[in-house]
């Protein structure tokens, strides 16, 4: 039972390593894929992360283009629905409410 737990490499070492495993000193899980980690590391640093960088630049440049006037408030019945009050605060504000861009059913709060 104990002998079965000894890996093959130990056994071949005991036998003087004259078998087919001479010279191939790596775990069989990496067979033929030694450079794949290097490939993905290169992809990460030369493609993926620069792609993120370019996208960040794009957002930054577009944000400098100008703050637009917020649209005038029209009390559409299909928007700003209040069938039931929200279970927080005064029940009239959404969870990510931003007074500058989110009007209440009665209009912008800061007008």
């Amino acid at each position, binding site marked *: 039972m104990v002998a079965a737990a000894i890996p093959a490499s130990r056994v071949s070492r005991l036998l003087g390593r004259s078998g087919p495993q001479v010279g191939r000193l790596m775990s069989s899980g990496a067979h033929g894929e030694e450079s794949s980690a290097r490939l993905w590391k290169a992809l990460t640093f030369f493609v993926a992360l620069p792609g993120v960088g370019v996208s960040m630049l*794009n957002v930054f440049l577009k944000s400098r283009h100008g703050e637009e006037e917020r649209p005038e408030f029209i009390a559409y019945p299909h*928007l700003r629905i209040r069938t039931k009050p929200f279970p927080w605060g005064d029940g009239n504000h959404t969870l990510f409410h931003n007074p500058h861009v989110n009007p209440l059913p009665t209009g912008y709060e800061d007008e």
Partner: protein
Amino acid sequence: MNHQTHAFHMVNPSPWPLTGALSALLITSGLTMWFHFNSMTLMLLGLLACIMTMYQWWRDIVREGTYQGHHTPTVQKGLRYGMVLFIISEVFFFAGFFWAFYHSSLAPTPELGGYWPPAGINPLNPTEVPLLNTAILLASGVSITWAHHSLMEGHRKHVIQSLLTTIILGIYFTLLQASEYFEAPFTISDGIYGSTFFVATGFHGLHVIIGSTFLTVCLIRQLLFHFTSKHHFGFEAAAWYWHFVDVVWLFLYVSIYWWGS
């Protein structure tokens, strides 16, 4: 006698399935108490019980699989089946929300003005932050593949670097989405547009947070030498889940952000 003649894991009796079920009961009834009777106690108790169940149950599995050696290849195969089936169930979960979105947007009703996006809705520009978010998640898919290959090749330092990169990208995505939620000129209460947008992207964001947490647990386990180059199913499960989250985002981006604008 501790001698089993089969490859399966006969798990010791555990209280966590019961505490998990109880936490589900407390959370659901707690939501009712919160929505209708202005009390958060039951729900908070339920959430606490849920988090503690998850922590202790998964901690037990880690113990069983590492120190106790119960995760034979046969057991691992079962765990693989389990994770695959779970992810498939999540695919169906999101399919429902995509169904709702397409149902409403392909045939906009007269109440909305007969067009999509509906009258009064200014959708987010898909070429700004949403595009950055796409780049972030795609990049994180590359970095997690780097992590996996490093793990298989035994490069401990690289595993840590690449896992950390992936997690940071996930957190960056979450922060950007949160900022988008605050800056959006439309809200969840803005009719069917708001509902489909925030429920679909909201559940997606929740899954990003879950995935990032799973990856962080993998990072901690890697630091604690739990993984070997041949046996690291916890990491693989996290990687599968992360790729799933990425793919859902791609569908969201194309459907809701791009086509839907």
